[in-house]
């Protein structure tokens, strides 16, 4: 009975109800777009950072992350790689052996991060093959190196020249090697570009006297949100005292903090948006109430109690807010789905400057389900709070005066 009354009330003055519904729906739409834009850029940042180098998950010997030395390397047991590959969601596992050594050519010498990699697997993570700007990419059995462009520039060497590497191997062994340069890699991140040397894994193990040992296994997974599950899956299958399994949150604490900080400013902006939206909604409610004073007066004089009237109005508000929230999400979905698949790239000088740092100059949109229902709840809640205004007005209404004033 009350529900029917409320429903009919809504459609009795179609125009007024539509304005209210549209204004709330629009608020939901704007809040969703704003949040989607923020969350989308975070996801992309994580994806990019993982792709630069680290991967979403790494496995190392327990203690390696705190103290990255060859002494904390572990034996590459074939069962381990096979086990990791089998876990659902793992796209590729990339074994690495890395340490610092001096790289020298002619009269120049510089500290370099010498990285032993399996060329094919490495390419699946960092897309190293596409970063080759001169020469060719490595083969697994090459006895040659790839040098990062910044380092090559410093050493003034090119493809075909011979690079001397001197360092300290496993258990303090002397590590020295002479390798022809097979190619030059250009990395977007300056620190990486200025110090990286790629060596095939087998050759690196020989160079560092670390036969069949690895410092880390980096993983590419299908979705960032599966990381926790995969970490748990691997941890369950290895001896926790021997190996540590870390997700990107532990691997890249700087990034996590950066996102958290940016998220604060994002939330402040969202709060500001809610303030503006809230005021718009309040205006609509206020007008709606003012318009209906006469009607309220009549209802009351024919004997409807305040409580019942308030209940009906409350139902009206609830119904309209529900309709509006559904409409708002319905409106935002196609827009966000489209832009999720077609990020907005911007052009011009600033875009080029941004891209030179390996960051994509674009707006990305997220389709995380939580983003929709969080906004929906927030707006619904706001409508609910603001809806107390008409109830208050009814509480104070003097029927005769209301009918007079309205005329």
């Amino acid at each position: 009975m009350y529900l029917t009354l409320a429903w009919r009330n809504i459609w009795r003055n179609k125009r007024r109800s539509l304005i209210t519904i549209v204004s709330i729906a629009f608020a939901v739409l704007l809040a969703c777009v704003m949040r989607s834009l923020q969350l989308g850029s975070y996801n992309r940042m994580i994806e990019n950072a993982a792709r630069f180098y680290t991967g979403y998950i790494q496995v190392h010997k327990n203690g390696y992350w705190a103290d990255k030395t060859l002494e904390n390397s572990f034996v590459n047991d074939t069962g381990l790689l096979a086990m990791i590959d089998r876990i659902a969601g793992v796209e590729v596992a990339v074994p690495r052996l890395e340490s610092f050594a001096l790289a020298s050519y002619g009269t120049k010498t510089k500290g370099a991060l010498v990285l032993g990699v399996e060329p094919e697997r490495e390419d699946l993570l960092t897309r190293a093959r596409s970063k080759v700007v001169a020469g060719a990419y490595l083969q697994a059995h090459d006895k040659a190196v790839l040098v990062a462009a910044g380092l090559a520039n410093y050493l003034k060497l090119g493809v075909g020249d011979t690079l001397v590497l001197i360092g300290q191997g496993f258990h303090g062994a002397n590590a020295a090697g002479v390798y022809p340069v097979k190619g030059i890699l250009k990395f977007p991140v300056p620190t990486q570009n200025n110090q990286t040397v790629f060596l095939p894994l087998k050759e690196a193990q020989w160079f560092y006297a670390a036969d069949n040992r690895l410092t880390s296994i980096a993983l590419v997974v299908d979705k960032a949100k599966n990381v926790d599950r995969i970490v748990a899956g691997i941890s369950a299958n290895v001896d926790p005292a021997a190996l540590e399994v870390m997700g990107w949150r532990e691997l890249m604490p700087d990034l996590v903090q950066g996102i958290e900080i940016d998220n604060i400013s994002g939330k402040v902006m969202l709060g500001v948006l809610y303030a503006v939206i809230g005021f718009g909604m309040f205006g609509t409610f206020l007008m709606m109430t003012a318009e209906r004073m006469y009607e309220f007066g009549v209802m009351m004089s024919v004997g409807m109690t305040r409580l019942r009237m308030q209940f009906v109005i409350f139902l009206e508000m609830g119904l309209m807010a529900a309709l509006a929230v559904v409409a708002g999400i319905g409106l935002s979905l196609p827009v966000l789905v489209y832009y999720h698949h077609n990020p907005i790239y911007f052009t011009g000088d600033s875009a080029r400057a941004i891209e030179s740092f390996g960051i994509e100059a674009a707006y990305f949109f997220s389709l995380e389900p939580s983003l929709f229902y969080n906004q929906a709840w927030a707006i619904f809640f706001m409508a609910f709070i603001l809806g107390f205004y008409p109830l208050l007005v009814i509480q104070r209404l003097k029927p005769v005066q209301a009918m007079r004033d309205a005329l």
Partner: protein
Amino acid sequence: MLVKIAWKNVWRSRSRSLVVIGSIIVGVWALLFGSGFMNGFLVSYMANIINHDISNIQIHNPKFKQDFDVRYFIANGKAKAAAVRQWPGVRGATTRTIVSGMISSPKKAAGVQIRGVDLKNEALVTRLDSMVAEGTYFTGIKRNPIIIGSRMAENLGVKLRSKVVLTFNDGHGNITAGAFRIVGIVESSSVAISETYAFVRQQDLTKLVALGDIVHEIAILTQPQTDEAAIITRYRQTYNHDLVESWRELAPELAVMNEMYGNMLYVLMGIILTALVFGIVNTMLMAVLERFRELGMLMAVGMNKARVYLMIMIETVFLGVAGAPIGLLAGWLTIYYFRMHGVDLSNYSEGLEAFGYSALLYPYLDNQVYFIVTLGVVVTALVSALYPAWKAIKLKPVEALHKL
């Protein structure tokens, strides 16, 4: 006459007018606070890097930055720095001898940029002394003291008074090495400082480089609110062989960040303005629809459409003019208050300080932003009134009078 009617109309329905004025106030305030807050983030982050790491202006030998070869030093660098120190607008200028090499502890080796610093002036320009978290600023160890960052110390597994060896090419291309003892460990949110720099006394380093008393870098910190370009031009005119760069060229990533933040800010502002337009359109539309009878009456007694249209627009202008200054004042007061006291963000992120931000955020706005925002919101209000006003002149007087 029309103005007078509009003015009276505004106050005839006080609650409705107050809602529109309120939306305008909230809109202006929200935009001001939002941009001030975002700006505050950026400014505090950039100030940190400029004041503690790269300074406003750096001078090098034009060839030095290509490959950091020790032989490309600044001719008469010390004399030039001494002269620059006297210029107006310069707060401090320091010289550095810079060598790239390797730092090794008994446990581990890492790449490093060795910076031979002028103790007194370095403290003036980058406040290196204030960043020393453990140990002292080059006092207490007589022979070859060295200061390194906390992350580097962690990487190398060294503590105060540990010995480290620096290895690099000297001025004649020979590999040379020197043993240094750690006198201090600096803590900084800057990755460069905490992970890749090692600071030694200039004279200790130049002795090993063996090219005499050379410097590779002059860093200049300007007085606040000084135009860097003036100092750069003056330097170029006085000594024309050196490469002079401002922080914009030195740290393009900061300029990029500036750019990205700016773009994002515009987008967010756009979204907020759209929300504002919607709020105002709704209220004005209702205001017009509610007054159908009255407007119909006006038209029936002979007011033409242009005048009705104009009247509604004038009403909106009044509302805007009433709301904007209050919003402006509220925004200014909020920002002024938080500029004095800071916004305490420590509850939201514990890692804030570790990342180069201070947990107290000071919003900041250029004066022109106040003007732009206010103008923007008033224009928005006017635009929002177009549709309702158009709706009003569309109405047919007789029907409108019959409606109620």
